[in-house]
């Protein structure tokens, strides 16, 4: 019942229109990732949902209840949300327990709830520490615990792992998602890291210049991006010109089948998109003749540049099956592709 609905939100700061008509829907218990480059308006959108800023136009509903529109504004303290910002922003003058208890009502069984949350975030022995006595990862966990403690109907995470180093980031990301799933919390996560967005979300919304470019499950976004922009924002991509053909689209790589979701492009001058790991190398198989001109070993994968006809492609292959520098062979495209006019 508690699902979040955002209709046609507009927001300007002075003359600059930051959000230009945002529509989003979010099922109860699901996690939505908002992915976009910095300055695309994703944090602004999050702040509107939280109620830190008013909307200019459009509406935000939590379940049946209208939270914000051009004439209605429910202040943040009455929205039942949890908010986890980039830096954690724990209250420096309160202990971990104090931070966790801050949002709990006075009368309820506070102590018990605090103990529950401490266990949930795995910091049972740290209740009496102050924020400055915790590591970055622990602080972020407390920040999440503090947001979850009052049992909010929606948790908003604003690039919560940004301040952490890479290693910690990965593990924190997994921990947090596990936690959100365990508690069945509805959540929106803002990030500019596609890997993070793919890993955590049920639905992924790609934002650009104040608009949602595409909103879909992560795999759909990755393999079937709605536009070139979305393709670029969500990972490396190879673009090449193509034309309609029997069974798909013809390009320098031969005929590749199209995804059914793909709007049929006009048959001349279409742009074909494949991902750089969508290739198989073989010596004597059907495929386009190719020649390795560059090779860069990266551990778990290897980057190569190959020449076919007059084109140069950058590909990513599993290290064990990557051809050697200077080797000639054939390239085969796996799976399907997208194409746009």
């Amino acid at each position: 019942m508690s699902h979040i609905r955002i209709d046609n939100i507009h927001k300007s700061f002075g003359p600059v229109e930051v959000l230009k008509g945002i529509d989003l829907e979010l099922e109860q218990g699901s996690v939505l990732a908002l992915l976009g480059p910095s300055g695309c308006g994703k944090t602004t959108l999050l702040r509107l949902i939280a109620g830190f800023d008013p909307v200019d136009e459009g509406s935000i509903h939590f379940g049946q209840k209208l939270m914000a529109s051009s004439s209605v504004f429910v202040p943040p303290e009455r929205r039942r949300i949890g908010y986890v910002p980039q830096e954690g922003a724990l209250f420096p003058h309160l202990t971990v327990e104090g931070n966790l208890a801050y949002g709990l009502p006075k009368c309820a069984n506070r102590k018990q709830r605090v103990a529950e949350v401490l266990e949930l975030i795995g910091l049972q022995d740290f209740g009496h520490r102050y924020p400055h006595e915790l590591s970055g990862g622990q602080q972020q966990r407390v920040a999440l615990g503090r947001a979850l403690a009052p049992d909010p109907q929606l948790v908003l995470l604003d690039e919560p792992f940004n301040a952490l180093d890479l290693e910690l980031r990965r593990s924190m990301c997994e921990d947090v998602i596990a936690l959100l799933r365990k508690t069945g919390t509805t959540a929106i996560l803002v990030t500019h890291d596609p890997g993070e967005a793919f890993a955590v979300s049920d639905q992924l919304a790609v934002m650009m210049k104040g608009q949602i470019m595409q909103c879909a499950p992560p795999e759909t976004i990755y393999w079937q991006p709605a536009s070139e922009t979305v393709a670029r924002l969500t990972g490396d991509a190879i673009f090449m010109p193509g034309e309609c053909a029997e069974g798909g689209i013809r390009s320098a790589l031969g005929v590749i089948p199209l995804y059914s979701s793909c709007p049929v492009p006009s048959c001349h001058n279409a742009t074909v998109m494949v991902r750089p790991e969508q290739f198989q190398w073989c010596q004597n198989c059907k495929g386009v003749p190719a020649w390795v001109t560059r090779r860069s070993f990266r551990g778990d994968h290897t980057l190569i540049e190959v020449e076919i006809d007059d084109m140069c492609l950058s590909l990513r292959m599993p290290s064990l099956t990557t051809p050697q520098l200077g080797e000639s062979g054939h390239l085969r495209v796996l799976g399907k592709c997208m194409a746009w006019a």
Partner: protein
Amino acid sequence: MIASAIRTGRRNPLRQSWMVWAALIPVTLVVLPVIYIFIRTAQLGAHGAWAELFRARNLELLLNTLILAGGVTSLAVVFGLSVAWCVERSNLPGRNWLRVVAGLPLVVPAFVASYAWSSIDSMFQNMAGAILILALAKYPLVYLPVAASLRNTDPGFEDVSRSLGKGPWRTFFSALLPQLIPALGGGALLVGTHMFAEFGALALLRVQTFTTAIFESYELQFNSSAAAMQSMVLIVLCIPLIRAEIRLRGGRNVARVGKGSARQAQPVQLGVWTIPVLLGFIVLFALALGVPFVMLGYWLLTGASVGVGYEKIWPAIQGTLTLAGSGALFTSLMAIPLVMLAVRQRGLLARLAERLPYIVHGLPGVVVALALVFLAIRVVPFAYQTIFVVLAAYAILFLPLAQSSLRASIELLPNNLENIGRSLGKRPFHVFVTVILPNIAPGIGAALALMMLEMARELTATLMLAPTGTTTLATQVWSYTSDGEFAAAAPFAALLVVISILPVWIFTQRMLRQGN
């Protein structure tokens, strides 16, 4: 459904209304002097005001005020700049020690220094004497920021200038000095503003400026139109300084962006100049510190009026503590909403609320006091001659001080702290009390200490507004010295100096450390 939402919602959400209302009180206070001038001018009418403004005496006062302010500021810049360069950029022996001592003249309030000098001989009681004595007392206001700035400047610019064929002097003026302008200008403006506002020292040194004239008119004739018009001239004089300061403030922010770690400059070898420079320092310290301290010691021990006012010391201490203590508390309380508005919110109101006190900061205490007397008698006659009028005057005069010290600690708080408090279901005021206040407590403590010191040393407004019978250390120094009883004034003056030592030392250290 929607109707109920409308009922709970507000059109303009984050305008934290209690804070806006709270900010209106200090803003109103600060505007009072302007209201006073306005009313008095209106009462006089255009002709009356005109006649009162263009009296021969006012021209003389104008000249005196400008000469004094110009002279003291120039001399203080010369002292401050040369001292700062010597301790920061030369190989002067003992410069680590000299660096701290050079800031110490701030422990002696200007009117105490003037008291010390005029008690030696009346030959110092003229314009030349006043310029020298006040420059000696105020040059640390230039020296401290310039020294800090000298440490921050990248010597690379100077190296480049030298490599391009400019000599050391051209390099100093074309490569180094422009970088010091913000610090130098800020310090000079502060000295200039102090000179427009200075009353006690000038009265003791018998130099007539607008402040002393306003005070005299006030003493002679309670509600004189001359005083009102002179106040107006004084305010007009302050406007360019205020504008310059605001501009400088803006520029300084830009200059700080992208500060890299600068290499330490290689100290300049003084060579044969070492001895003359050291002698110069000795003379400077002897005049700026030696004379006041020696004279205070002398008058404490000898003189016809030794022991005259001993029984009044304790009441004066009590009076000082009461006025300064409650004044500091009241002013901090007024400053908190202003600072919160400025740090957390954008918009016209926030900007105005923050800037206004800085604008009025140039107002001399004598004008503020005069305005408060005038308005108190007419609007709230029961408050006249009570501590509340003094508190109001202190708040007007020292709000900028409270704002800048509070601002530093409030800016340290993460931006989102209030938002998080609210997202956890607490109302804005509750969040302020449970989250913001505990975290800025140390900042408030420092602000209180600083303000108490400044208020204890404040003379003009205290003298004019303190309830009958309430004395402070500063007013006692004033009343005994006016009667020529130097020895009787000495213990009060000495106490004022003593309470200043620790805060000034800490302030000096902090200013100098900014360079590191």
